[in-house]
């Protein structure tokens, strides 16, 4: 590793360790929670107004294209949420930061919700567009599996906490479940699916700008909203841990 790479690694690890301190984390999280949440709500409101009233219908899909403005963010957060669970699980297993374990558990519920919403909005879009509510194709089935994996993780993490576990088993499950992410991503490439291929890539978009632009608002808005929810849940879990520790001290 060269000097710059070594320095970047040290800065990254130092920041990670600094944020792992619950007191320091709360100092940042307290002002950040309403900032993320309300900015997200405002951007979602702009995206909803623009997506429902300001853009033209698609020449093939008609008005149902307006479901895209919520379906894409929910899909992004369903998959992004599990990436967060997996990264937090790795950080917990490698550096043993309890805050990483809390982050993974805090992400799981909103991640499951958005994965479920992705499936529901996709199904609602499919009925007028494909003529069916559901198709057992690669993309839909792999996303449904991710939703079930979220539910299994939530149940496992809860059972582990109730039995006084150290969080290692849910963390291993969090890492193992990430195998689904490339399967979901490349399902439309590997298999001949009813679901269309990627419309938005790093090299550009096949969607016209006249229809595409509100998606930037809903995508950013729902991402910030998701961040706000995760911080709220992390703060609740940290406070609950402090209450339980206090009760244990009083009982001793």
């Amino acid at each position: 590793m060269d000097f710059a790479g070594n320095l970047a690694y040290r800065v990254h690890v130092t920041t990670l360790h600094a944020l792992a301190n619950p007191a320091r984390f709360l100092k940042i999280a307290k002002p950040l929670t309403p900032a993320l949440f309300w900015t997200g709500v405002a951007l979602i409101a702009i995206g909803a107004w623009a997506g429902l009233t300001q853009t033209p219908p698609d020449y093939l899909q008609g008005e149902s294209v307006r479901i895209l403005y919520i379906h894409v963010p929910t899909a992004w957060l369903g998959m992004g949420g599990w990436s967060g669970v997996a990264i937090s699980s790795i950080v917990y297993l490698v550096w043993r930061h309890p805050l990483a374990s809390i982050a993974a558990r805090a992400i799981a519920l909103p991640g499951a919700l958005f994965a479920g919403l992705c499936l529901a909005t996709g199904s609602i879009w499919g009925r007028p567009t494909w003529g069916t509510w559901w198709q057992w194709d690669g993309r839909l089935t792999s996303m449904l599996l991710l939703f079930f994996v979220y539910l299994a993780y939530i149940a496992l993490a809860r059972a582990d906490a109730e039995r006084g576990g150290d969080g290692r088993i849910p963390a291993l499950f969090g890492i193992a479940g990430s195998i689904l992410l490339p399967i979901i991503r490349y399902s439309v490439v590997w298999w001949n699916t009813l679901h269309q291929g990627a419309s938005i890539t790093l090299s550009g978009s096949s969607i016209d700008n006249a229809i595409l632009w509100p998606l930037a608002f809903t995508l950013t808005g729902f991402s910030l909203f998701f961040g706000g929810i995760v911080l709220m849940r992390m703060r609740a879990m940290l406070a609950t841990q402090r209450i339980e520790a206090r009760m244990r001290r009083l009982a001793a």
Partner: protein
Amino acid sequence: MNAWPFVIAAWALTLSASVIVAAISWRAMRRAETETERPKR
């Protein structure tokens, strides 16, 4: 086929689910943090 009922259903479902999860998370956070701020007995 008129697609507007499907559009409205998808948006209403997403927004209402988002509001519910935000309300539950905010309430849990407030309740737990208020409890920790109480003077120790």
